[in-house]
């Protein structure tokens, strides 16, 4: 049995007693939803009797190269640019409606075009190649895009203490094994969008995932999203990753700045600087110069 992390023990105590110190209305809502996320994770851990004490010989075989199935949809059943299955708060519903309306007017921008990371939970939906490195005390989930690594600690540690925590692109993930299922709790994320044509989420978003290999060529990620600012109730989806069988394929270093000539227009949309135009960054000279965006005079 793992020792219950101090922070979670406190949460259980608060839930049990049913009291906490109220702050602002938003903070109260955050507390309520955040505890639901943490509570779900905790209940799963208790149900698993603290989690399987994992050793090298018990680890599941998740070797190989994988890719997200079903494009970039967070809810695989809902196409992008369509009404979402997420139960959005009025504020985020209005944001999403505006996003769809703007797109119909030819206006769309994605922060990825600045070569920033996708962020989590959007990270779940990104296409391209994935790889899992599974160790008893830690799982690395590698995404080819931006050469990102999501670290999931399974050594029984708690989340980063609140006075040290800050939002990051992949969040802070702790987990445990329930047999061959990896159960993960992720907090401390940056605000973002599930993907283009999908809703936004706030930096209060947190998730509980149950990840398992359901067949030789499919790994499933059962996700419940909590976000007091964007969701009126948790959003449950199941994403799948399928094995990529292309011969000789490897996950190579993925540098976004290698050949990025995308710019944001004055009306907030997406455009390109083409070869031969002012400001074009030639990939052939991006290292040696003189390529590169000109500094303002």
């Amino acid at each position, binding site marked *: 049995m793992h020792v219950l992390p101090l922070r979670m023990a406190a949460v259980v105590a608060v839930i049990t007693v049913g009291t906490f110190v109220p702050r602002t209305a938003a903070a109260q809502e955050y507390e309520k939803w955040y505890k639901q996320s943490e509570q779900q994770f905790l209940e799963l851990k208790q149900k698993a009797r603290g989690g399987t004490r994992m050793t090298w010989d018990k680890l599941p075989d998740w070797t190989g190269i994988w890719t997200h199935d079903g*494009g*970039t949809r967070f809810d695989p059943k809902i196409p992008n640019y369509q009404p979402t299955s997420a139960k959005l708060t009025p504020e985020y519903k209005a944001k999403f409606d505006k996003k769809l309306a703007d*797109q119909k007017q*030819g*206006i*769309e*921008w*994605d922060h*990825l*075009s600045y*070569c920033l990371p996708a962020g989590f939970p959007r990270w779940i939906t990104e*296409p*391209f*190649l994935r790889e899992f490195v599974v160790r008893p005390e830690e799982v690395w989930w590698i995404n*080819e*895009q931006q050469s990102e690594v999501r670290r999931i600690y399974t050594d029984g540690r708690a989340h980063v203490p609140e006075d040290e925590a800050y939002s990051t692109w992949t969040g802070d993930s702790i987990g445990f094994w329930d047999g061959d299922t990896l159960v993960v709790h992720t907090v401390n994320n940056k605000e973002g969008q599930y993907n*283009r044509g999908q809703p936004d989420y706030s930096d209060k978003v947190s998730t509980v995932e149950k990840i398992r290999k359901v067949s030789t060529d499919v790994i499933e990620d059962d996700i419940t999203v909590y976000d007091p600012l964007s969701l009126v109730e948790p959003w449950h989806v199941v994403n799948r990753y399928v094995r*990529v069988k*292309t*011969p000789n*394929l490897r*996950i*190579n270093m*993925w*540098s*976004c700045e*290698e*050949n*990025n000539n*995308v710019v944001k227009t004055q009306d907030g*949309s*997406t*455009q*390109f600087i*083409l*070869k*031969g135009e002012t400001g074009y960054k030639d*990939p*052939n000279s991006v290292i040696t110069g003189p390529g590169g965006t000109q500094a303002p005079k």
Partner: protein
Amino acid sequence: MKIVLAALLSAGIAGIATVDLSAHHSAIAYDRDADVELTGTVREFQYTNPHSWLYVQVVDKAGQTVDWGFEAEGPSTLLRAGIKVSLLKPGEKVTVKGHPLKDGRPAALLVSVTKTDGSVLSTDAALRRGPGGKPIDAP
């Protein structure tokens, strides 16, 4: 250039499949309802992330040489579609299909490349063909 594009678009083929450019930027700048088909000479194949770019020299109806850029997915996605960097060499004659930029500049979202041996390179498996235009299985 808009005149050139209009002329080229008039020669565009119907039924070019929609491609899913799902990487790091929106494809909103492209006209997904318009098609362009151009024949020219490969100038450069930038086999890069986040996107690859195929540059093709095209002679327009006025006799002017224009460099057209065709944006494609990054190397790993192209490899999964069998599009190796070695398959498109500078100086090679190709016919390229794509969805052009809305603003008329000479660039498009790549749909397919037809080589002189009749093979068709595309991330859309339905368009892919081997030498002589024969159907091939996806790798």
